[in-house]
């Protein structure tokens, strides 16, 4: 079933349109930077952008930092929100279930498909950004090493390792989004409703984070530690928020997947 879902995802035109759209923004940023040579000052604007001007190979990181906080969550919310509700709306859900495909198995296959979509998107974005970055912004002097946010030098190997860690962390955050959307997808009859519901949760979370009165809630908000991956590029690594972020996301993943599973496996399919 997982293979069937993956095949559907890869063959869907929408998958590639979404990736293309997501990919367009960092590419546009690279072009603008190359033309104007006006980077944000260090410490301002999206992470890593100031460093990119001197070293184009860093651009994949900058691209991900641009894409992660907004574009990717939207794409995940839409894809995961459609998972069950979309099949239900198309009427194909009932035919899957009477093939028979077990409901738990279907849910797992959908989750794997959504996460594969995220991985695919991240890989495409990183690869395009590397090509665009080196072409437009030039290669930095690798022997002097790239700079961490803290100002010290990191070896290329170290940088690669930390990048992988950051990607893993970002994936986990997206898994949290996917869990919420998948749950809503088993509740709502409409894929759009599930996607918008998820986005509403994320937006509400982001707004509450800026509100001092919501201080007591903040450690529990899903987006609270999303940007903690930046801490992985400090020297030494600042683990505190990253660890909290991992634990918090795991709670969200477990709670919402369990709720989605409980709801879906006992639901009357009446589409």
């Amino acid at each position: 079933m997982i293979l069937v879902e993956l095949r559907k995802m890869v063959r869907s035109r929408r998958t590639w349109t979404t990736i293309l759209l997501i990919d367009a923004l960092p590419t546009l940023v690279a072009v603008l930077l190359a033309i104007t040579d006006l980077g944000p000052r260090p410490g301002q604007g999206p992470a890593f952008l100031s460093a990119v001007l001197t070293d184009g190979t860093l651009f994949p990181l900058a691209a991900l930092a641009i894409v992660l906080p907004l574009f990717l969550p939207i794409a995940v919310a839409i894809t995961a929100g459609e998972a069950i509700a979309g099949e239900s709306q198309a009427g194909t859900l009932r035919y899957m279930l009477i093939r028979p495909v077990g409901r738990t198995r279907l849910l797992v296959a959908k989750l794997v498909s959504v996460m594969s979509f995220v991985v695919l998107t991240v890989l495409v974005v990183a690869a395009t950004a590397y090509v665009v970055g080196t072409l437009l912004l030039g290669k930095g002097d690798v022997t002097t090493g790239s700079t961490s946010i803290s100002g010290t030098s990191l070896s290329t190997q170290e940088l690669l390792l930390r990048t992988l860690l950051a990607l893993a962390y970002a994936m986990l955050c997206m898994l949290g989004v996917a869990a919420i959307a998948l749950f809503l997808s088993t509740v709502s009859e409409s894929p759009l409703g599930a996607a918008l519901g998820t986005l509403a949760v994320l937006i509400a979370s982001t707004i509450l984070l800026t509100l001092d009165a919501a201080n007591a809630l903040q450690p529990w908000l899903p987006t609270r530690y999303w940007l903690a991956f930046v801490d992985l590029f400090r020297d030494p690594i600042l683990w505190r928020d990253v660890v909290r972020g991992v634990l918090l996301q795991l709670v969200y993943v477990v709670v919402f997947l369990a709720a989605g599973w409980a709801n879906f496996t006992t639901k009357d399919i009446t589409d």
Partner: protein
Amino acid sequence: MIRTSSLTKRYGRITAVDDLDLDVREGDVYGFLGANGSGKTTTVRMLLGLVLATSGSIEVMGRAMPSGARQVLPEVGALVEGPAAYAHLSGRANLALFDAMGQGARRATRAGRVDDALARVGLGGVDSRPVHAYSLGMRQRLGLANALLRRPRLLVLDEPTNGLDPQGIREIRGLLLELNAAGTTVFLSSHLLAEIEQMCTRVGVLDRGRLVVQEQLDVLQQPTGRVVVHTPDADRARALLDGQVEHQEGERLLVRVPDAAALNALLVGGGVRVASLSAERRTLEDVVLAATSSGSDTFSAPAVGR
């Protein structure tokens, strides 16, 4: 093949299916009749494990449903409330995708199964256009092909001839009878009396969630013990039959006699010209109308007494 006992489904305060005892035997073409909203589709969905019963039990091919779904459903083909497919893919790609779902379908023989199913429903030569360009009838055929993919022992079909032209309906009827002759049990849910009457060996009638009739079709259609006679000499025949005529309507006489052949001989012997003569049988329509209340999609206000 299908056996339910006291099957009940409630949605809140509404009882959709009430205390249903279905009995479908192996080899039957079972016609499940009922007005729109009488609970047919809910019943079909419960049989397939899509909707969970409030109370009562279901047994399909000797196993309890929905707990035995993994063993039962691979041998069941179904069409539930219209066909469904991925609109951007071709019919063939859709069937291949559905065939790959679930377990027990060998990949090596997939293309053969898909072609076979398409050929059976008359889509053998279909091109690679996407399903959203299909006509209603083509979609219906594709849905049937999907039901036939795994060569099921039991077919559960909800309104299978929806959207088909008369030619198509006849084809599908032929196909279903052919499959039945080869050993497939067919459970056919429909609100079309004629369709059931032409195909089925056994009939169940659902009215507001209750099963009000369940019987062999030929028992339901037993002769009524009356003979319908058309004759231009109606008055003469009436005199000859002496009180056996129950009803006269122009040239049409309704005669209470046990033997139509003897009646014919009597009339002709008496010099009465007989245009046509046949034993009267109850029609399925009579049976259904006698057993059911008015359709459940009417909501007339209760009569106010004076």
